[in-house]
């Protein structure tokens, strides 16, 4: 745990140097100053010096969230609009072992660089180093500010999962919303300023668990997220693979059941039972190995027949045989084409029927709308000849009710569902037949080639030789095709096998065990205490037992979210209570909370008396006890409350004057320069009148220093790392 002992903002204006500093003690304290004093400026300086400005929604190094007073123009007393030439913020952090660091960061200038002045208890020498807070400040172990800070704070680095699947870490900007509650947006929700600009998953939960010291839980959470991402990726691969298998087999007229339905574990178990070749053999009776063997045997025989077997010159069957084969194949193709044509016709008819059903559904729906509107409804009238009511039934016509029309629409939709299923089935049959035709065409081409060759041969011997050669050629081509299919199937199978082994590696992380429940209970108990102390209107001693935190650490009272309960004041009580509870629980559990809680305007600048009373009763009672962490509350209190708190032992730092930042007197400036050993190149010209006290928490600017020539002092150039 650390303590924030000083917040300083200073700079150089056209009128000379200016500065403001707040010195803080341990435990709880209140900084009381009126609006526009610069309290929030001081609070934001802490964020800036932690390098966490991203929580304000600005890019790294962008100081745009600071007021103009330290970026553009500053007012000192009656003098307004004085140009700011340079400015910087600085905080002093003390560790529990006594060592300290002063972190200084320019607001104007090289905002990506932070100067660390480190002093350890063992060595009083101040070691000054410059770190960068731009890219990879966590990964850069030598010059990165985040890396340094985590190391100095004793915070373990934690890898997190992201939406993109690339690894990321927990950064200071993710921890800050747990202990810094911004004046404007910070009170709208617990961790209102939490960001995940690197896409970290469940960052809010991780930040809380980190603060509670639940590193095992964070690791488990990350592992589960990564596992879920991996599962989703594997499921996508499975779907693509299943589609490829279906397409590959359908192209050859084969159909097997190879779906990717179910969880990845289910799919892996199913796919591991039988390979593609076995499934093909079982469902379609296609045994490629057997086929290969048969073809090889046939090829062997044909080769032998071609080269060494005797030929019977009297055998005239070669030509007839070739011719017969071609005829049979043509007949088969004709039949397949005929079936295909029938299927296509049925498909067209089914499409037409679906089209007419769609049109009838629309017409009936429109009729229902017409009936509901009542437009065109005809009043009863009498037939002029027979004086009876013009009853449609007399004309053999019927009038349907709206309910009947809706029922008709529902029936048509069922018909449409039937026909759509039929259409899909026909489409699948057409695909299969088409591939069968295609396969048959190849065989037909072979047989026609054979027939041509045999026909061209003259004499029975040559006919037979030509026939054998053609058969051999056809068999070899078919063997090539079978080999090609086997290769394709083997390729797919190998991808499937790899996929299955990837699934096996997933493991089962759903039932990991950590001590998170105990830690969550500690946080819950602390929250209950603070909610009652701070006077949340919905929480009483009798119902506080129903307070719980869900998996996302959202507080519930019974079944209702606490954020939905109570008044607007209760919302800020809830946020304050949670922030304090987290710090306290971390102390108890040895977590990684920094040990500081900064609450900027918990009274939200419009305090009503009861609201203020409650807060400060709480401060007087519970919070003033040594909680083991530092709490700084930025607000404004009337004199009576200041007195009351001081009586209760709570330090109240009162602002003197109207502004935090104050133009420095020349003497003070010189003293400052000496202290810092600044090497200014030009002496301050002229004298400046005495303008006030030391730059402690007093008026910032108000007692005017007469306008003198501005100091030409340049800001210190940062030393190289």
């Amino acid at each position, binding site marked *: 745990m650390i303590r924030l002992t000083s917040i300083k903002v200073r700079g150089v204006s056209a009128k000379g140097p200016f500065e403001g500093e707040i010195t803080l003690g341990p435990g709880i304290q209140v900084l009381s100053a009126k609006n526009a004093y610069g309290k929030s400026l001081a609070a934001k300086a802490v964020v800036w010096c932690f390098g966490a400005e991203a929580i304000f929604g600005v890019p790294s190094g962008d100081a745009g969230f600071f007021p103009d007073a330290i970026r553009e123009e500053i007012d000192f007393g009656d003098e307004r609009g004085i140009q700011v030439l340079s400015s910087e913020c600085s905080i002093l952090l003390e560790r529990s072992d006594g060592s300290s660091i002063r972190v200084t960061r320019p607001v104007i200038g090289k905002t990506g660089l932070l100067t660390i002045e480190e002093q350890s208890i063992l060595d009083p020498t101040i070691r000054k180093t410059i770190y960068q807070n731009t890219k990879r400040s966590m990964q850069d172990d030598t010059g990165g500010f985040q890396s340094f800070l985590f190391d100095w704070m004793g915070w373990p680095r934690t890898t997190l999962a992201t939406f993109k699947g690339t690894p990321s870490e927990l950064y200071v900007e993710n921890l800050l919303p747990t202990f810094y509650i911004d004046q404007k947006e910070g009170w709208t929700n617990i961790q209102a300023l939490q960001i995940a600009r690197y896409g970290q998953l469940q960052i809010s939960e991780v930040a809380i668990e980190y603060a509670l010291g639940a590193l095992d839980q964070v690791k488990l959470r990350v592992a589960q997220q990564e596992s879920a991402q991996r599962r989703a990726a594997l499921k996508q691969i499975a779907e693509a693979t299943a589609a490829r298998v279906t397409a590959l087999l359908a192209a050859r007229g084969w159909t097997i059941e190879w779906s990717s339905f179910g969880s990845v574990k289910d799919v892996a178990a199913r796919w591991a039972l039988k390979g593609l070749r076995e499934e093909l053999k079982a469902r379609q009776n296609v045994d490629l190995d057997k086929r290969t063997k048969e073809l090889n045997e046939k090829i062997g025989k044909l080769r032998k027949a071609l080269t060494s077997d005797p030929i019977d010159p009297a055998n005239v069957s070669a030509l007839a045989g070739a011719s017969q084969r071609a005829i049979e194949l043509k007949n088969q193709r004709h039949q397949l084409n005929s079936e295909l044509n029938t299927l296509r016709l049925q498909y067209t008819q089914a499409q037409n029927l679906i089209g007419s*059903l769609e049109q009838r559904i629309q017409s009936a729906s429109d009729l229902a709308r017409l009936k509901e509107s009542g437009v065109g409804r005809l009043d009863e009238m009498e037939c002029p000849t027979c004086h009876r009511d013009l009853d449609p039934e007399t004309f*053999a016509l019927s009038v349907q009710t709206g309910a009947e029309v809706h029922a008709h629409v529902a029936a048509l939709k069922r018909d449409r*569902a039937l026909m759509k299923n*039929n259409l899909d089935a026909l489409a699948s049959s057409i695909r299969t037949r088409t591939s069968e035709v295609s396969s048959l065409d190849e065989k037909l081409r072979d047989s026609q080639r054979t027939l041509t060759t045999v026909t061209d041969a003259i004499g029975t011997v040559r006919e037979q030789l030509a026939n054998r050669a053609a058969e051999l050629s056809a068999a070899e081509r078919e063997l090539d095709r079978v080999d090609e299919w086997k290769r394709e199937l083997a390729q797919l199978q190998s991808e499937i096998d790899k996929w299955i082994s990837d699934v096996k590696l997933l493991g089962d992380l759903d039932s990991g065990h950590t001590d998170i429940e105990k830690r969550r209970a500690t946080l819950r108990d602390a929250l209950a205490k603070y909610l009652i102390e701070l006077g949340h209107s919905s929480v009483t001693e009798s119902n506080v037992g129903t307070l719980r935190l869900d998996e996302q650490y959202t507080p519930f009272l019974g079944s209702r979210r606490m954020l939905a309960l109570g008044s607007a004041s209760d919302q800020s009580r809830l946020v304050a209570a949670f922030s304090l509870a987290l710090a306290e629980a971390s102390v108890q559990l040895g977590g990684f909370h920094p040990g500081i809680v900064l609450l900027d305007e918990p009274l939200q600048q419009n305090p009503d008396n009861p609201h203020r009373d409650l807060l400060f009763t709480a401060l007087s009672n519970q919070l003033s006890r040594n909680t083991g962490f530092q709490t700084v509350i930025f607000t404004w209190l009337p004199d009576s409350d200041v007195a009351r708190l001081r009586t209760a032992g709570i330090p109240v730092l009162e602002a003197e004057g109207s502004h935090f930042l104050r133009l420095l007197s020349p003497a003070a400036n010189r003293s400052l320069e000496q202290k810092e050993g600044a090497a200014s190149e030009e002496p301050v010209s002229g004298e400046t009148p005495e303008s006030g006290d030391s730059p402690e928490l007093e008026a910032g600017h108000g007692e005017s220093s007469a306008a003198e020539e501005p100091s030409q002092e340049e800001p210190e150039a940062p030393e190289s790392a």
Partner: protein
Amino acid sequence: MSYIDDYADGLSSLTAQVFEDEVCTRLEHVLIGFQRIPAKPQGDGGLDGFSHGGEHGYCCYGPIPNSFKKPKDLEADIIGKFSNDLLRLCELFRENEKLVCKPNLALPKILPNGVKLKQIVLIANWFESHNVIGPLHTAFKTFKSKSKCAFVDSDAQIRIIGPKEFAQHYHADEVAILQLATRLVISKIQVAAATVDIADPKEFDNKMAVLQEIRPDKLSVIEMFAEQLRTSWRSNLAFEQELDSTLPGLHQALEDGRRRILGKVLQRMMKSEEPWNELVDMAAEAQAILKSDFNQYGSLLEDLSLGEVARLIGECPIGWEKPN
């Protein structure tokens, strides 16, 4: 089966007020000047309607046949009811086995002034025994002799008819069948039956899933059944579209036939203790219903009939659920 038989069959299954409503509606259509007489609030005086200026009167009675153990009891019930009606029309009342005069206060406000009933038609939903004829005619003769005949002519005649005679005499045609079918369907909804539930059946695939739950031992049979049903249903849709485009008159006949088929299914499955077995004969019933219009389609009629039933199952007016 002709329209007459169809209509008679449907009429015989109606009872009580529903039966009376159907009879009166039919008479209103067929007889110009038929006047229905409401029973409330002042009473109907023993008549359910009159026509011919008040000279013809009509009394309806639709007992629940199954509520009598023997036909003899039903006969006695019908005789008793109609006798009471005739007594009232004759302004008589039974007191200690004697007939005494009792003015009928409703009839003067119902029948036109000075008009007397010359013919009274007694219409029952059951007329399968001639045993009711003699006693009623005899009773009426007696009543007339004792009556002052203020509203009933001394020569008035009665006629007792059942559903078939009614259908024949009052021109049951396809319009009548349609209307009766609708009334039948609506009346059945209100009857609590042991075996029939009116519910909201699910879509076709869900129905097959329920079927698989009911018979997990017959999954492949169910698949076969579902496919056959789908095939019949599809053929029916295609045929219907063809009719709609080329023979709209027949298309309308098919629609009407479908309604009658559903009415028939309701009737038979409701009455039977083996409702599913009734379904087996439904295709033949459907064929009979459709035959008059579609006979020229020859063997297609058989498929069409099956397709109609298949469609009723597929489009969910007919379904099933697991027993409790």
